[in-house]
């Protein structure tokens, strides 16, 4: 299949596909970060994660519309406000969901899976009723359009670079919160020994609620980023949920570094394959590879060996 390309062409193809893969990688990482926090730290399978992401996307879309109608002069900066609003909206919904639903199910992880699936169906229908079944697209401000020409045959779109920069920033922030802040220590304490953490005065119920909300909030930000590379519909989130779960499991559930590495390898594999075959076969091959590797190494790429 390489026959018809020259070496130079192939190089450019790999770079361009690699970059396309990096945007996919950004969405995966942002989605997976939230999921990894909720699954890895709390053991809850959040099947509604895609819908939290889509909430962020809708919030971004509404903010951009508001700016267009009322504050056209500030339109170029709407995205930063939209991102914050997306975080808050998804986070707040997450907090509510945790209080109503999740906290009753911590001892039954398989049941959280079913309950959050139910939640995702309801949210999808809610989006359809409120925003309509048609997909909506966000208009990007002028400065994000266009692309940077790196060499004659390689150019990269600016919004892609922006999304990636954003991803790096958010990942660093999450890493800081989870590993350096007092609150992150509390979360990890609760994960390792819930009863003991409660006994030393950590409010475990509160830690759970904020952890869940944080995970959902990050999904909201992922939704914001998502609007730049795709259009938003009520069921857009569902398409990503299985991929994202595989990213998390593949990386080894409790490891932030693992999540990033696995998002990188999965997205790069897929986008490189996509150039040589149909998108659907590329996806089949990628997923098969991931499932195959998980069968050989079920603990994921990064996992500690401990006495259980």
């Amino acid at each position, binding site marked *: 299949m390489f026959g018809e390309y020259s070496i130079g062409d192939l190089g450019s193809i790999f770079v361009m596909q690699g970059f396309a893969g990096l945007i996919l990688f950004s969405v995966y990482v942002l989605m997976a970060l939230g999921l990894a926090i909720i699954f890895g730290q709390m053991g809850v399978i959040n099947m509604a994660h895609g819908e939290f992401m889509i909430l962020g996307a809708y919030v971004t879309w509404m903010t951009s519309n508001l700016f267009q109608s009322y504050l056209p002069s500030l339109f170029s900066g709407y995205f930063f406000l939209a991102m914050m609003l997306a975080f808050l909206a998804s986070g707040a919904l997450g907090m509510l969901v945790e209080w109503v639903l999740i906290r009753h199910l911590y001892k*039954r992880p*398989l049941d959280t899976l079913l*309950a959050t699936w139910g939640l995702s169906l*309801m949210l999808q*229908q809610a989006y359809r009723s409120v925003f309509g079944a048609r997909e909506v697209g966000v208009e990007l401000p002028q400065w994000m359009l266009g692309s940077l020409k790196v060499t004659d045959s390689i150019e990269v779109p600016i919004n892609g670079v922006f999304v990636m920069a954003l991803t790096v920033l958010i990942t660093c922030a999450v890493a800081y919160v989870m590993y350096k802040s007092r609150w992150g220590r509390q979360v990890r304490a609760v994960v390792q020994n819930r009863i003991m953490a409660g006994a030393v005065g950590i409010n475990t119920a509160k830690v759970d609620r904020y952890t869940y909300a944080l995970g959902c909030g990050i999904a909201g930000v992922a939704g914001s980023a998502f609007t730049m590379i795709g259009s938003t519909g009520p069921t857009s989130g569902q398409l990503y949920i299985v991929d994202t779960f595989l990213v998390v*499991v593949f990386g080894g559930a409790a490891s932030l570094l693992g999540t990033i590495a696995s998002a990188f390898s999965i997205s790069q594999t897929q986008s490189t394959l996509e150039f040589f075959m149909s998108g*659907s076969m590329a996806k*089949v091959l990628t*997923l098969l590879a991931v*499932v195959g590797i998980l069968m050989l190494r079920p603990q994921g790429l990064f996992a500690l060996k401990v006495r259980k």
Partner: protein
Amino acid sequence: MNANRFTNRSELIGILVLAAFLVVILPLCLDVFRLNLVAKYLTYAFVALGLVICWGYGGILSLGQGVFFGLGGYCMAMFLKLEASSVENTKIQSTPGIPDFMDWNQITALPFFWKPFHSLTFTIAAVILVPGIFALIIGAAMFKRRVGGTYFAIITQAVAAILTILIVGQQGYTGGINGMTDLRTLKGWDIRPDHAKIVLYFFEVGCLFICIFIAQFIRHSKLGRILVAMRDQEDRVRFSGYSVANFKIFAFCVAAILSAIGGAMFALQVGFMSPSFVGIVPSIEMVIYTAVGGRLSILGAVYGTLLVNFAKTSLSESFPELWLFGLGGLFIAVVLAFPNGLAGIWQDHVQPRIDRLISSRKPKAESAWTDNSVADGAPAE
């Protein structure tokens, strides 16, 4: 201690009631169209039955039962499609004698893996063996390495996603997104007219009861008790000398084969098979049938399937936008409030009243304590 290996008295009554309902009451009350609808729902009851064994007893939640339903259904549909694509039926095609969708996709010869499906014997064997062996491979790979619980659920879901994308993508071999349509005859016998639908309905109910008896046999054997034991204390079972993985593989394979039988019935009853019954969404919906019926109740699975599907049909006909809210709410309600589903409600609220009614008439009646076996068991919490 009940010596009967299949069933105790109250279960036998339950089976007879279900039999009367499916064999007598429904055929008398419903027209052929509605009866065919019931037949379609009952094909999912096979899946739900499998999930009772695998998920309810074994604690193994598979979110990929649609895969096995689909494999069974596609095997059957391939046979029916080949019969419907005889040379004279397809003489207008550029290559007569192959299924129409292959012709549309510029395929000029029947692919090798289609050829054996000319034989009905092979097809029936394939309906059982293909999903069975596939489940064996997945199960062996996962359970031998101690992958279980949520990980297993996610992997099965990924398998469902992979198979759907594959079926849709390879439309020359599979019929793509539209699936295999226009299935007509079974060994020359037309499956489309009303009287055929009625015969097929009774055939299906017969098969369902055979499967119910198989499930009852498993549940009342020591294997059934080991599954329950494994669900809570996997290590204790392992260190009592059992290979836990083998028992899980067995439960998963049984569930897969039951699903596949349901799928094959579906192809016969409904006259087509498509990837929309394979993927993630249908697979997880099948879990809710079991959850609504009661994940520990074999008969509950059948009632749960019928109830959810009736609700789906009537609600989505009249209030399409309400249906997803209803289904979503059902997931949440069953998990939060009724973890043992309809069977649990029956056990906790209806059965005691009936017992009281009977014992107040017959003061010397047997105590209800003799029945506290596993399946009617305590809440899973």
